[in-house]
């Protein structure tokens, strides 16, 4: 329209963006600066981290746990999305039940999960009833605890992946399925040659968004195992700040996580862009 409309638009963009940047980005920048401060500018904080075996465990878990969690979420989410969008199988009850774990606050899910997986919790109670040996699901430093963390994380977030994939499935034109049926394609062939290629943009989008989120895992680990059980970078940084009272080292650890998320996130976005160019809009 004209200059006054343009001026209003500028204000409308600048004010919210400055608010977000001032509240979230500037503190992170300050943290970056302080992470290089160890009684004066130095790399000492980072060197201390690299000499700490807990840091390397946290770094390893921070790759392993998100990777496992995203795979579980994706397989379960896809299975749910496919069954729930099949017309004969539509059920409001199942759909609501499938979404429920995401609607429940994360901390409530984790509280519950703790009572379920504790040594004398419900899961071991059920296992004992069948006469088998209870398992130490949350035992610190064990692969089993890593498995438990992955399962619980996926339990809360699978509905999100399911909803994203359902949205993708709904954009596939019914004519394609009709054509596949007329050509005599079976269930598997239809899935392989119609559903999967058409769903690819939604799959890539869901994997990237969930991957970025999964890398920042914090509360699942903290509530289930404490910061030492299955350390990840967020909880490692938290315990440096809260228990060890070493804020600058904590910031150094958090900056390494930020760097990791940024690299993987930007890489993911580049992949996503390629897919959206090939297949039309990205879900």
């Amino acid at each position, binding site marked *: 329209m004209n200059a006054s409309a343009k001026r209003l638009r500028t204000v409308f963009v600048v004010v919210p963006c400055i608010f977000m940047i001032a509240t979230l980005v500037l503190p992170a920048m300050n943290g970056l600066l302080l992470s290089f401060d160890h009684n004066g500018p130095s790399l000492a904080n980072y060197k201390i981290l690299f000499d700490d075996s807990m840091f390397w465990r946290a770094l390893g878990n921070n790759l392993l746990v998100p990777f496992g969690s995203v795979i579980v979420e994706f397989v379960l989410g896809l299975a749910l999305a496919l069954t729930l969008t099949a017309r004969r199988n539509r059920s409001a009850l199942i759909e609501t039940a499938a979404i429920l774990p995401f*609607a429940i606050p*994360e901390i409530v899910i984790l509280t519950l999960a703790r009572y379920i997986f504790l040594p004398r919790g419900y899961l071991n109670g059920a296992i004992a009833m069948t006469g088998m040996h209870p398992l130490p699901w949350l035992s610190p430093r064990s692969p089993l605890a890593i498995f438990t963390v992955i399962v619980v994380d996926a339990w809360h977030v699978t509905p999100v992946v399911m909803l994203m994939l359902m949205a993708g499935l709904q954009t596939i034109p019914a004519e394609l399925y009709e054509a596949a049926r007329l050509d005599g394609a079976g269930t598997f062939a239809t899935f392989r040659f119609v559903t999967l290629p058409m769903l690819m943009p939604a799959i890539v989008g869901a994997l990237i968004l969930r991957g970025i989120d999964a890398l920042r895992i*914090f509360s699942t680990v903290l509530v289930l195992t404490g910061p030492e059980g299955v350390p990840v970078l967020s909880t490692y*940084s938290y315990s440096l700040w809260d228990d060890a009272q070493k804020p600058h080292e904590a910031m150094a650890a958090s900056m390494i996580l930020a760097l990791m998320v940024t690299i993987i996130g930007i890489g993911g976005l580049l992949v996503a862009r390629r897919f959206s160019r090939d297949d039309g809009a990205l879900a």
Partner: protein
Amino acid sequence: MNNSLKAARVALNAFVLVAAVLPLYLLAKQSVTPELETFAWPPHWIPHHLTLSHFISVFAVNELRSAVLRSLAVAAISAMIATVLGAMLAHAMARSSIAQRIGFSTVSGIRLLPMIAVAIPLGIILATVGIYDSPTGIGLAIVHGAIAIPTAALTLYAAFVAIPLEIEEAAWIDGASPLRIFLTIDLPMARASIATALILCFILSWDEFGFALLVQQTNRTLPPLLYYYTVFGNVGPASALALLMMIPAICVVVALGPSLRGALTAGSSR
């Protein structure tokens, strides 16, 4: 082939029902069971004794009551901050491609920031301003407001795009200023989405754990309080508190259902 698919479907549906319902049942059970019985081995699947004492203590203990009030206040204030700023951003994004590019890149940039990388240095800044760990929770409300702006903006963006430009142009010809057009035409037309944005941002704050844990160290909101109760073994009150915490979210999903589903995933973040 078809039979085995059907069997898989039935199994999946049963799994979903168990994963959603059994844990809630166990939580509800714990909230009305005396604590001694909750620690019994093997665990009781059905309570042998019932008590309401955990729910009574939620409202009788000062710490719990003030956490409920603080959580409500923080969620309400942050939802308003995020919806007002998000509406501004969404409107500009819906009307100009440059604004759209700036908006989307800021929003996706924010998503890349890990909570812990922001929260620790932010605590230092809040402390110098004097609102770290404040009893009113104002520092946390500001942070929650900022992290909820993407959710609000993405929810409202679609609504503003859907408003025909002709309506704005007609008002412009009648002599209305751009601000007035926004306030008296665009906002009322988008009111359903504004309500959705307010609800989503409220819930985002109500559920948020990480920032709340770091910014409100002693004047806690519900999620960190629940964390301490869970970790330090107050099973009964923790379960009662957890049940109360679920009320807003469950109401929203059951009552608003399908219309909210797309929006729920739009701004989901940890």
